[in-house]
């Protein structure tokens, strides 16, 4: 399930078993994406939220 990075256009490999919500990152520029949908074996990505001050355990 390869797709393109919206930041740098590099290929992003999305694992075949990826599920909605999973985070993938671009190996070239480090941009993080969240799988928002898997349709007909194709993953749709959206920008993942960045770390916020209230993130934690």
């Amino acid at each position, binding site marked *: 399930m390869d797709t393109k990075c919206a930041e740098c256009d590099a290929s992003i490999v999305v694992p075949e078993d990826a*599920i909605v*919500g999973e*985070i993938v990152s671009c190996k070239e520029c480090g941009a993080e994406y*969240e799988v928002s949908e898997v349709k007909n074996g194709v993953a749709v990505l959206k920008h993942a939220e960045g770390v916020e001050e*209230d*993130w*934690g*355990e």
Partner: protein
Amino acid sequence: MKLGIAFDRLRWEEKALKDEADALGVEASLVDAKGLIFDISKNSGPLIGDAVLQRCISHYRALFLARMLEGQGVNVINPYSVAELCGNKLATTMALSKAGVPTPRTRVALSSEMVEKAAEDLGFPVVLKPFTGSWGRMVHVVRDRPTLQALVELREELPNPIDHMYYVQEYIKRPPRDIRAVVAGDEIVASVYRYAPEGDFRTNVARGGTSKAFDADQSLQEMILKAARVVGGGVLGVDAMESPSGYVVHEVNNTVEFKGAQSAVEWSIPKKVVEYVIGTVRS
């Protein structure tokens, strides 16, 4: 029983919880909290489970979600009250102290004016922590007054007013490790030492800390379970340290991450968590 596992950033833990729920024959679903809307004027919203394991990484999202689910009558693990207490270090320290759970001496200064006095009362070095957040973020050992002044100057530049109040804690002279106990109800599911990576005093796995299982002695077990009860119980991560005068509990985590602890034990931590959740529904 229908189990919802609510998340806002899917981590290994949430997937492992889902896998274990599936293996135990529980109807479970992973639910992205970012995609939910609730009608709070009617206390209604999406029915994501009879029980919901609240696993949001954002403290405020976790709080709000728990509150709205409880409004629907859902059994939320952990409840809003627990999330609120654990998500605020000031409240956690006060609750632990009041209950007689040993915890590091802590001062709170409500402005930058009094932070040096607070540190002097405790004696340098001190540890400066944010009120909310974890993974060791913005946690600093402050060895002297000039360093404190520099850090306070930086904090005062931050836009959030909560950063302009100060939680100052005594520095515990501990071995280069601390203790993480994963608790589910009345059971310590795993207890591990967390070792700080080289060059850092913070032991957080998120900072590169590593875990090694150990058997907690009876006094530590009792302290851990008491700390968990004090905040209201549930599925928790209790953090403790070995101080020269004995164990101290310094934090209780509401949305415990256990990937590090899992790497150190042979049994399944998420399985024990799901079994606990099933038990809360049946009881």
